């Protein structure tokens, strides 16, 4: 099964289970969780089920295209089910079966792995799903997002698309994967990986200090503007600028541009902003409680 067939399978599976098919967030993010279709929709009481692919950037995981398993950018298939159905684990296993993974021939396990995003003020309880020892999915019951207790609880299923495709295609190097129509993953993405890794690790024709200074400045400007947007009541754009800060912080971190105490301070700033944005979203979307008569 090609990578794109896998995406199609998962999409049709989850669409048939009541999910809206959304599109990726058109911004640099580290995970599908940052997408407002997750970050915002899990807040408040309104039921919401959605699925989408999210290209996810992890500057620190960049390996210049030389590592067969690690990527600056990988693809997640993200499913949000709110409220989380009682049968959610079985639904998930059915989705694997739909992709051609027969659970009776493999060893599929749910092993404890809780998830936390310090910059988003979010955490959840869950598992990593292991398929014959290979981690293919992160399965999380969100408990808090933006520092807000969630009710009802949403379930987030995050499939690692490259991992699963490599498993299905019995390929040991991600760049050998067939993306679709005989075209390999390497043909599509190798050069991008090399360039992005160089960037992430600061291998740019610019002195290190200048590289760091530029990114700090970008961070500060985006941060200030996110606050302005928030103050203007523009919650979606505010989140986008907050996410830009989060990515810039990741670059500062991977390029070794910040010290350790500074690092915690950056995380805290992004988190405080994310919390404010989440609160604003809840306030804006919760229907006012009608006064008791």
């Amino acid at each position, binding site marked *: 099964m090609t990578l794109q067939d896998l995406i199609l399978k998962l999409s049709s599976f989850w669409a048939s289970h009541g999910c809206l098919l959304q599109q990726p967030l058109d911004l640099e993010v580290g995970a599908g969780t940052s997408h407002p279709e997750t970050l915002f929709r899990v807040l408040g*009481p309104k*039921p919401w089920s959605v699925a989408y692919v999210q290209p996810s950037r992890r500057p620190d995981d960049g390996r210049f295209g030389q*590592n*067969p*398993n*690690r990527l600056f950018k990988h693809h997640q298939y993200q499913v949000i089910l709110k*409220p*989380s*159905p*009682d*049968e959610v*684990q*079985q639904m998930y*296993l059915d989705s694997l079966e739909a992709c051609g993974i027969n*659970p*009776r*021939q*493999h*060893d*599929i*396990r*749910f*092993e*404890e792995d*809780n998830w936390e995003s310090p910059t988003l003020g979010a955490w959840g*309880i869950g*598992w990593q799903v292991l*398929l*014959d*020892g*290979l981690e293919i999915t992160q399965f999380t*019951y969100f*408990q808090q997002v933006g520092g807000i*207790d*969630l*009710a*009802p*609880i949403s379930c987030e299923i995050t499939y690692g698309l490259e991992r699963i495709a490599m*498993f299905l295609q*019995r390929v*040991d190097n991600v760049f050998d994967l067939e993306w679709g129509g005989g075209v390999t993953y390497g043909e599509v993405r190798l050069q991008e990986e090399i360039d992005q890794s160089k960037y992430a690790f600061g291998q740019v024709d610019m002195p290190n200090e200048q590289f760091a200074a530029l990114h700090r400045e970008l961070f500060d400007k985006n941060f200030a503007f996110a606050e302005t947007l928030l103050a203007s009541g523009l919650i979606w754009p505010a989140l986008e600028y907050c996410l830009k800060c989060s990515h810039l912080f990741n670059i500062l971190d991977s390029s*070794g541009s*910040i*010290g*350790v*105490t500074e*690092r*915690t301070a950056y995380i805290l700033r992004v988190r405080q902003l994310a919390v404010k944005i989440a609160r604003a979203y809840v306030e804006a979307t919760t229907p006012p409680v009608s006064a008791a008569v």
Partner: protein
Amino acid sequence: MDRELLIEVGCEEIPAGWLPDLTAQFGQQLDARLKEFRLTSSGPVETFSTPRRLTARVTRLAERQTDLEDLVTGPPVSAAFTADGQPTPAAAGFARKYGVEVAALERSETSKGTYLTYRVRQRGKATVDVLADVTGALLRSLSFPKQMRWDAYLEDGKGDLVFARPIRWLVLLYGGRVVPFVIRRTEAAQGPTVQDIRSGANTYGHRFLTTSGRAGRAIKVKTFDDYESRLLENFVILNRAERQSKIRRELETHARRLGGRVSHSAHSSLLQEVPDLVEYPSVVAGHFPAEFLQLPQEVLTTTMIHHQHYFPVVDEEGHLKSAFLAVTNMQPEKPEIIARNSERVLTARLRDARFFWDEDRKAPLEARIARLSTILFHKKLGSYREKADRVAALSAWIAAEAFGRPEAAAPAERAGRLCKADLATDMVRELTELQGTMGGIYAREEGAPEEIWKAIYFHYLPIGVEADAPPTARQLGRAALTWAAVSLADKLDAVVGMFAAGERPTGSRDPLGLRRQAQGIVKILADLPELTGLDVRLTLGPLLMRAGNTFGGYADASGTIASFMSDRLAYLLEQRGFDVRNVRAVMHGRAENASPLDARRKLEALAQMSGSQALLGVATLLKRVKNITKGIAAPTSLSRAMLREPAEQQLLAELDARAPVIRSAATRGDYREAFTAIAALQPAVAKLFDDVLVMAEQEELRTARLGLVATLRDLILEIADISEIVTE
């Protein structure tokens, strides 16, 4: 008639690490709730668990609650009636509460006077009618390392029911019949896909395996025996010990087939964990390319054990083979499929590890130290870069000053500086369990001498407090001294630093593991001669003070750290089987003056003398002496002229003769001799108390006699407060 109670809480996969404790809690709490609800059982509560269920069974549980009879106390009679004998509002109110006339109340005598009382008699209800309340209380009483909200609540008015993972079904059978119970779902969540959980007689077998019908379908059960055997038919081995022995058996068989055996170091911890990861274990064997055997053994085993839960296989000499054993939760039709996939996962990880191994060795450890500034040790104590400087200086000081071995200072300083450098290597960032170990290996690869690389390699140890906890003198070889200096320095820096930063452990909260670090310190000090060949009886005070100097002279003014440390020392000594009373005896005095090695030697001497009636005699008399000399300091010189009685003369002579012996023995650390000399004082001390009244009428005489016994007291207390060894 007594009937069987069967409870099964069907759950989504509970973390393996929680199951042993959670299963025990489940049994204890059920037992406690049954008692609370006055339900008597013959025989204990039996518990079972798999990742997807917590099960309890009571073979014979009474059909009714025992009747309740309780005497409730009301107002005192003195306040119950007005002058004309009419009930006061207090009395009337009390009677009304129980729905009776005041005249029907009883009077009871108490130590505080006579009170109006009411005898509550409540006939026990049928067990089936209270089991729902028992179940609710049971579910609420469990505690979890991390609890989860899952849109559930109970109808007991206490709101949300948090749990380990969502509950999916509930078997609740008494005498084979379902006891109605319901876990409600919140309004926000409830709908076609989110439903209340109602108790029933249905359990569920293995997710994927079955002998007949569809895997994962509901299985109706009636009794525990029925339940257990139906589960087994459906590929769930309920009994953990049986799962474990199946794993053990299959591991052995497969290892033998591979021409090796399963490594024992892996056995203990991994074999404890895997039974809680599976409902129906079976073992699959796999191989990895032999070229990876060139990686350090530590890297291979850590990758297999910690990351994949695979058992490494070793040959007869204990060398790793290029094979592994995976415990699956299946009875695979084609084990080769799982084996091949597992091989690919492991090979990918090993390929990564080899990449790190090759990359990391391109730059010397020294070059990593600068990178440590990006890794936080503690927000108030700075980065590991700063910690490296502190540990280097402290290691050098310990070697030169505390150990008195200036020639070891330079290698200790070097090892101290490098000991955290591996935190900035790719290998340790990926395999954090290898911190220290990896630094040692890299230092060795760079050609660092044994004194240095082994000091780094072992510096996180010891973990255990037992005398033979690793590392051993043999493992340490020529690195013993530098290792001891660096290991002590690292731990002292952590303990003193964290206390200075206000991170003191409280109760069961010790997130930074300071107790273990402190135990490491006292363990090294207590076993210093065996570990390093160095016979130095170091006290805690100077070490703590020197470590404190680096935190802006953080002073342990209130002695908090010292007493924290001496608690850990007492723990170590008790763990080693020394008598608790003896431990108290040798742990007397100021905590900062405690020397772990001295304490250990004194205890060994006391243990050897445990039969000595003479020593026990002195101990008993010391207790008396301590009582009568409370607050009295020993005089700088005795009023010998006043002490003319033969008994006094004799004790004086004994003290004059024995004191130098005791002190010299103590200086040499020969506590057997010291205690023997103390025991030898027994006749003279006994005679004094028999023949002479210490608390004499005449003040001058009394002062002289008290001075004599206070001198005796202080002499003994220089060694130990042996009054503690007296059996009450």
